[in-house]
């Protein structure tokens, strides 16, 4: 009888397909990952154990922090169409006309902190200059000239007109921010009957309670 010959198998596997898949996935994740936008007002958010993620759309953020000018408040909207509609409403109320180009440029600005009068100047700036510390002094939010209130009001109006949905609000404060400043923002929101909003926090591991 013929001897049973063990066929010598090659010790290696063909990795070409695996490599293909791996790189396909890699490309997918790189492309879907959104690059972190530079923030004009960087803040150190306090950590908490809550696990709720911030929504990606239908959200407006009020950032309270300190830059080299002093205390300042910034406002940002997540949806581009709401940004456009809000700017138009805001311009109407102040009698400022924005060109189409300016509106288009504004829809790319994630967060800003200038009085309405300085908005045109801000839009004209380049992206890199805009996010330099100290360029944007913050939105006036005191009782004499409360532009923040108007921004909040018009963004809500825009959201209801466009999406038929109430805009959600989040307060993003610096951990070292004193409470009265935060309270001021909460009061501005509450004056417009926004009683439910979120506080933006970082992640901290959940402690064991038992």
């Amino acid at each position, binding site marked *: 009888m013929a001897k049973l010959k063990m066929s010598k198998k*090659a*010790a*290696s*596997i063909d*990795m*070409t397909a*695996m*490599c293909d898949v*791996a*790189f396909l*996935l*890699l490309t997918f*994740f*790189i492309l*879907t*990952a*959104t690059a*972190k936008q530079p923030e004009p007002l960087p803040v150190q*958010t*306090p*950590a*908490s*154990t*809550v*696990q*709720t*993620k*911030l929504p990606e759309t239908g959200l407006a953020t009020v950032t*309270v922090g300190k830059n080299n000018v002093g205390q300042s408040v910034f406002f940002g909207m997540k949806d581009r169409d709401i940004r456009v509609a809000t700017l138009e409403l805001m311009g109407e109320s102040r009698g400022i006309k924005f060109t189409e180009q300016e509106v288009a440029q504004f829809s790319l600005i994630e967060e800003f902190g200038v009085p309405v009068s300085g908005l045109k100047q801000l839009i004209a700036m380049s992206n890199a200059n805009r996010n330099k510390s100290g360029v944007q002094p913050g939105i006036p939010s005191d009782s004499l000239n409360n532009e923040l209130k108007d921004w909040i009001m018009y963004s809500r109006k825009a959201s209801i007109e466009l999406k038929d949905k109430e805009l959600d609000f*989040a307060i*993003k*404060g*610096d*951990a*070292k*921010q*004193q*409470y*009265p*400043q*935060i*309270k001021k923002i*909460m009061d501005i929101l*509450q*004056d417009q*009957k926004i*009683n*439910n*909003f*979120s*506080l*933006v*926090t*970082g*992640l*901290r591991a*959940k*402690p064991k*309670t038992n």
Partner: protein
Amino acid sequence: MAELNTGDSGGGKGGKVRSKKQNSKVDLTAMVDLAFLLITFFMLTTTLSKPQSMPLGLPAKDDKETKIPPVKTDQRRTVTVILGGGDQIKWFHGLLATPEPNGAPKTTDYGKNGIRKILLDRVASIPLVMGDKEKGLIVIIKPTKKSTYKNLVDILDEMAICKVPTYAIVNDFTPEENKLAEELNK
């Protein structure tokens, strides 16, 4: 490791000079390793870097027309927490003038051995004292002007960790409470 022996080992027949057959396979192991490492990195960073949010509901500010009569709560259920500067907390259980046993105003701090211990004790004990499961602890949070945003988030976090059934942020201070707050902020 990952090479195929493309039989080129035979003792060459004859004197013909054969051009050496180049091994056409490339070792892909390292490349695949690297690709998967990067995939893992991008997968984790896309989901983990999103900021967390803490939902907060505040009671509606009472208008002049719809004045809600103040709700009387049992003093045995309320713990008042005054947030001061320098990460300090002053707390008392019950009324300030007539505190519950072990509830006289004391100074403590945030975290595991501070306010959490106090709250956890009371979350467990108050329903027993009241004889009703529904009547749990009520925490009244009073942030002073010296307290920071971090303090507020920390105390709200403690509420979530200790599972305090009812809590509220109150900004009014009685004169006695003001005195306590001043003591804390000295």
